[in-house]
C-alpha cells in the first residue's frame, strides 16, 4: 500500500480546509447504523479508505478481500445479489484500473446495486507518480452504460452523495478526494442526481468544475469579478447522467464555457460537456484538466498548478473566452 502524502496548502488558510474522506467515512458509519444492508469491502485499504471505525463497529458487515481488486468487485456483485448494499472502498487508481472488466460486467452490465468509492482519486498521491494517479477513472467509468459517476466538491457534498447512494438503483462510482478543500456548500445542502449546482450567477462566462477544483473556480470568479467579468460557476458533481440543460443554458447565456477537472480532459468532464455542446449548442470552450500525458514528479498541489488548474490558470482561460487578455 501507499504511504500518506503530505500536502501543502499554499496560499490558503489551513484551518479552513478539510478532507472529503472523513465525511464519507462518517456517513457510511451512520448509514450502517440505520440500515443493516450497508456493508463495506476493502482491498487492504483499511487506513487509506478510512474504514477503521466501520470495521470496529460493524465487523460482520465488513470484508477485507486483501490486495485483490478483481475479486473485490465480484464480491460486490454477490453481496448485492444477496440483498446487501456494498460499498467497495479502495484507492481509485488500483480499483478502477485493475478490475475494469469486472466493473463493466459484474456492476455495469449486471446493473448491480454496488457503490465504488474511488479513494484518493486524481493526482492526490502526487509525487508517488502516475501509477498511483487516477486521472483516467472518469473517462473509463463514464462510458459504461448504467454507471452513475459522481465527483463531490467538498465534505458536505460528499456526505450528501453518500446519503443519496443508499436509495440509488444501479452501480455508482463516487470519487473521494484526499486533497484538502474549502467547503463550498452550506450545511443544508441537498444533493440531486444529475443536477448541476449554480454556486455563483453570472452572464459573461461560465466555469464548470467538479471535485476539489470547484473552490478554485469560485476563487477565479472572484478575481474575474474584480476585472468586471461576471462568471457563472457550476458545480457539475454528477458527471453522469449529465445536466445537459444547465450546460446548454450556460452556452446560450454566456460567451463560453471553461471546464475544470482533476482528470484527463479526453473522456472526462471536459469531454462530456463538449459532447453536449457539439450536438445541442456549439459554443467556445476551454478544457482545463490533464492533457494527453502522464504527470511529471511533483506534489498534488504542484501538479494542479503545473497543468494550469490554479486559480490563475482558470482566470486566464476565462479571460480568453470573454475576449479579454490572451
Amino acid at each position, binding site marked *: 500500500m501507499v504511504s500518506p502524502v503530505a500536502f501543502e496548502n499554499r496560499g490558503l488558510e489551513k484551518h479552513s480546509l478539510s478532507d472529503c474522506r472523513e465525511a464519507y467515512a462518517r456517513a457510511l458509519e451512520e448509514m450502517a447504523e440505520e440500515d443493516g444492508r450497508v456493508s463495506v469491502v476493502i482491498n487492504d485499504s483499511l487506513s487509506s479508505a478510512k474504514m477503521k471505525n466501520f470495521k470496529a463497529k460493524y465487523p460482520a458487515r465488513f*470484508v477485507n478481500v486483501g490486495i485483490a481488486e*478483481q*475479486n473485490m468487485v465480484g464480491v460486490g456483485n454477490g*453481496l448485492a*445479489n444477496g440483498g446487501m448494499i456494498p460499498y467497495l472502498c479502495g484507492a481509485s487508481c488500483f480499483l478502477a484500473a485493475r478490475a475494469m472488466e469486472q466493473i463493466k460486467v459484474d456492476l455495469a452490465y449486471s446493473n448491480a446495486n454496488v457503490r465504488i468509492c474511488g479513494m484518493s482519486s486524481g493526482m492526490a498521491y502526487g509525487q508517488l507518480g502516475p501509477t498511483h494517479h487516477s486521472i483516467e477513472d472518469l473517462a473509463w467509468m463514464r462510458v459504461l452504460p448504467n454507471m452513475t459517476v459522481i465527483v463531490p466538491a467538498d465534505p458536505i457534498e460528499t456526505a450528501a452523495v453518500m446519503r443519496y447512494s443508499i436509495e440509488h438503483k444501479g452501480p455508482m462510482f463516487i470519487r473521494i478526494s484526499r486533497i484538502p478543500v474549502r467547503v463550498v456548500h452550506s450545511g443544508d445542502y441537498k444533493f440531486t442526481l444529475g443536477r448541476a449546482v449554480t454556486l455563483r450567477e453570472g452572464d459573461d462566462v461560465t466555469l464548470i468544475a467538479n471535485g476539489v477544483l470547484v473552490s478554485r473556480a469560485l476563487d477565479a470568479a472572484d478575481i474575474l469579478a474584480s476585472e468586471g467579468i461576471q462568471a457563472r460557476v457550476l458545480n457539475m458533481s454528477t458527471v453522469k447522467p449529465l445536466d445537459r440543460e444547465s450546460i446548454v443554458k450556460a452556452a446560450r447565456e454566456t460567451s463560453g464555457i471553461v471546464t475544470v477537472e482533476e482528470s484527463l480532459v479526453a473522456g472526462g468532464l471536459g469531454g462530456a460537456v463538449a459532447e453536449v455542446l457539439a450536438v445541442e449548442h456549439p459554443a467556445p470552450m476551454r478544457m482545463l484538466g490533464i492533457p494527453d500525458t502522464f504527470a511529471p514528479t511533483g506534489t498534488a498541489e504542484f501538479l494542479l498548478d503545473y497543468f494550469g488548474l490554479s486559480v490563475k490558470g482558470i482566470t486566464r482561460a476565462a479571460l480568453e473566452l470573454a475576449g479579454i487578455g490572451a
Partner: protein
Amino acid sequence: MLREELTEREFDKVSLPEERAAWLQKKANWIRLSAMTMTHHSKLGHTGGDLSSADILATLYLGQVLHVDPDQPHWEQRDRFVMSKGHCSGAFYSTLAQRGFFPLDQLKTFMDPLSMLNGHPDRNKVPGVEANTGPLGHGLPISVGMALAARMRNEAWRVFVLVGDGELQEGSNWEAAMCAQQYNLDNLTVIIDRNRLQQGDFTEKTIRMEPLADRFTSFGFAVKELDGHDHFALLDAFTRVPVETGKPTCFIANTIKGKGVSFAEGKPAWHHGVPSREQLELAKKELGVEVTW
C-alpha cells in the same frame, strides 16, 4: 414436452437411487439434444461444454439439489447457482426452461435478434439466471460475495458455482479461493467441469491444471473428485455439502467434453462446433431422446 413427465413431485416419488439416476440421465440427455438443437439453429454455441456439463446441471436443478422456486425467481431464501462458464448457455438455458423458469418454446429463439437468450446469460433478462457471465473468472468471486451475504444476513441458503477447468487459468479465481478460505465459507460449493479441454487444446498442453485437487486443498477447500457423468454420485455428493464444516467445498467432476455424442466426444474442434442436420439426427439417436419445442 418432457417437463410434465419430469416434475419434482415425480422425482420425489421415486425412492430408488438407481431409478433417480436413470431419470436424471434421461433429463441430461434431453438438455444435451436441446442445446445442440439450439446451436444448430443459431449456428453459434459451445457444444463440447454443453455436453460435458449437462449431467451436473440436470442433477442440480432437476435432481432437486437447489432450493429454487421458478414461480419466484427472486425469492430471497433461494439457493444461488452461478454458471461461471457462461458460454455453455445452451445447456444452461435448456436446464432453466426444463425446471420451469420460462417456457420451453423460448429456447427456439436462442441468439435470435432481440431474444432474451443472448449467447451468454443476462440476469436482467432471463428468469433464473443469477449472474451475467461469459468472460471467464467472474463466477467464483461473485459466488464468494453471495456466500458472504448469506453469512452477513445469517441466512441458510447456499451457493453453488460451476466453473470450467480451463477457466481456472484466470487469476481472479485464486483471489476468490483465498477469500473463501479466509472467511471459512462452507456455504459455498465449487464444481469444476473437468473436461480437460479448452478452446484451443487440451488444458494440460496449454497451461496445466494438475495437481488440481492438491491446489484446491492447499487453498483451504475440502476437495472430492467424482465422475461428472454419474448421476448417482453427483446427487449423493451435492446433497451432502459441506464436505467439511468450516471449509468451502470443491468437487472436481471428471467429465468428457462432447459427452454422449460419438462424433463430439473428446474432440477439441467441438468446443464451439455447430452440428449439421445429419449430425443432429445422429445425436438424437445416440441420446435416445426427442426435443419438440
